[in-house]
């Protein structure tokens, strides 16, 4: 899942650095994730993992780091299963 998230970050988040250079804990907003790019990232993650982020997860914290994204997806896929 981690690699897939990094791929999607590279494709949608328009960060000035490659996702491979970021640690799981690195702050994506500090790394240059803009508000509009985070929407693109959110929609791409929903497509790729066949999930829908509920309204209370549509905020900066959910997409603050690769680890945060991983936790959010895990939570949603567990609930679905």
């Amino acid at each position, binding site marked *: 899942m981690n690699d897939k998230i990094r791929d999607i970050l590279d494709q949608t988040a328009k960060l000035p650095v490659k996702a491979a250079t970021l640690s799981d804990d690195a702050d994506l907003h500090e790394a240059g994730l*803009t*508000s*509009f790019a985070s*929407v693109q990232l*959110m929609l791409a993650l929903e497509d790729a993992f066949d999930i829908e982020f509920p*309204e209370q997860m*549509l905020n*900066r914290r959910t997409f603050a780091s690769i680890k945060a994204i991983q936790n959010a997806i895990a939570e949603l896929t567990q609930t679905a299963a």
Partner: protein
Amino acid sequence: MSVAASATASTSPVSAQEAYLDELFDKGILFDTGVDGLYGRSDVFEDVIQAFDRLITRYGAQDRATPIHFPPGISRPLFEKSGYMKSFPQLAGTVHSFMGGEADHCTLLAELEAGQDWTGQQTATDIVLTPAACYPLYPTVAKRGPLPVDGRLYDLQSYCFRHEPSKDPARMQMFRMREYVRIGSPEQVQAFRETWLERGQAMMGSLGVPLKVDLANDPFFGRAGRMLANNQRDTGLKFELLIPVTSEEKPTACLSFNYHQDHFGSLWNIPTHNGDVAHTACVGFGMERVALALFKHHGTDTAQWPQAVRQVLWG
């Protein structure tokens, strides 16, 4: 304070809004056109708008902003590039015209005569109604090349259109927005916004109306919009100065203080003097909303307004 104002506490917001709108029609302050949010204005109403306009200028003059006077329409290609349809498709108003031949004209007249929908043949022109006063500014600034060291400051005012028909007189479909727009380094534009957060409160306080400043978000569309709105709040990008007009619980945003970060600078390619992407911020004044707040709190007869308020507005 008017009768309607003292009754707001016990009536629902919707009926309080309608009651105020009816009062404005009855007193001849506004004129009904048959469309919610599209009203004629009396001389009395315009006198208040003009006096408030001069008051803004008194507070802002020291900054020596460059005024640009745009008509209330913007270029459709530039509107498309602005991304407005991503965020607010529900509010946009596009201008369409008849571009057919004689046969098409006959069809159109027949449809009109029969009371059918005649708008099918209307074709989009190159003009879109301005949704916010600053939209035509950014591409205009971008054409001028890199900013000077001090950045730039503009003074704009335009009639704006937003498709949100409502009985709330403070939610018009066609209304005037004045804006000061600062373009420069992050430090320059944030300092500008801080200054106006203070100035705005001092200015509105001098008009004898209750007010508060609060964190806010724009009405972005859909689920993606929910996220943009949450982000906007989390990062403190938008503040509004609120005045109760028809509801104490849901006061009306009369001024807004917005920091766009590098959104417009990057979209329109506006570089600072050293080649960084410019940041932008603006303070917006809802001209009609301020007038409506004043009529609500001081009554519809401006001659009877508190002397201190009259002094501020008319000297």
